[in-house]
């Protein structure tokens, strides 16, 4: 069997074992490695043929969604990595609404409701209730927390 055959078998085998994964990210970007480690995990899971149902940003991790972030040129742009996953693979990036609001992370709807000067959440992220965290736990075969 040639290399391509081996690769085909590996891929086929992986799809048989594919599971639905959701993750929670807790640690703040830069103050912790949680968001970076989680990104690597999700990319690997997708590469191995698994399905990622939802990424739920909780606690200080909601700050990752800040639309005003300017990443240093000589560092990996962590937010860009997540945004790419959302745009190319349709991965849902969810922020806990209670945790987001008090940290100034507002989508357009929240901006209007609370009369704030600007929306601050990048369009790739959605702001959702805590119920979506538990729904992700219920709908997934594996749930992994990146505490940070």
């Amino acid at each position, binding site marked *: 069997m040639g290399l391509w055959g081996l690769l085909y078998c590996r891929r086929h085998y992986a799809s048989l074992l594919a599971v639905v994964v959701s993750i929670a990210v807790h640690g703040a970007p830069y103050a912790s490695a949680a968001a970076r480690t989680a990104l690597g995990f999700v990319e690997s899971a997708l590469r191995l043929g698994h399905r990622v149902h939802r990424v739920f940003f*909780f606690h200080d991790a909601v700050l990752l969604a800040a639309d005003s972030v300017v990443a240093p040129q000589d560092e990996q742009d962590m937010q860009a990595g997540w945004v790419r996953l959302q745009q190319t693979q349709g991965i849902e990036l969810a922020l*806990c609404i209670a945790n987001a609001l008090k940290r100034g992370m507002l989508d357009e709807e929240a901006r209007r409701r609370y009369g704030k000067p600007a929306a601050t959440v990048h369009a790739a992220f959605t702001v959702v209730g805590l119920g979506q*965290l538990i729904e992700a736990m219920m709908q997934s075969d594996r*749930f992994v927390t990146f505490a940070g």
Partner: protein
Amino acid sequence: MAKRILFLLNRAPYGSSYALEALESVLVAALFDQQVSVLFKGAGLHQLLKGQDGAAVGQRTVGKMLGALPEYGVAGLFVCAPSAARLGLTEGDFCLPVTLLDHDGQRRIINEQDIVTG
């Protein structure tokens, strides 16, 4: 189908907002009729202390919120016994009836879960 979810709480109640926020997720999990347990470890044991008043630091009282857990159907309330020993705390110091577990006991209940989270 209901999942067995263990929340591992190891943060002090007022040093950051993590304890309160985590507690909110515990309550929502219970509202969704999951089989929820909580294991307090390390500084997280301070969340359980009697006589705390969050108003002194402009916050809700974590211990009082924890008191709602049994009403929400949270069955398992566990405390890491080595953490309690290190902090000089005994069952009488806690505002809720809890089960103290040594490391083997903790390993056993963690193995029984579908999900372990913070």
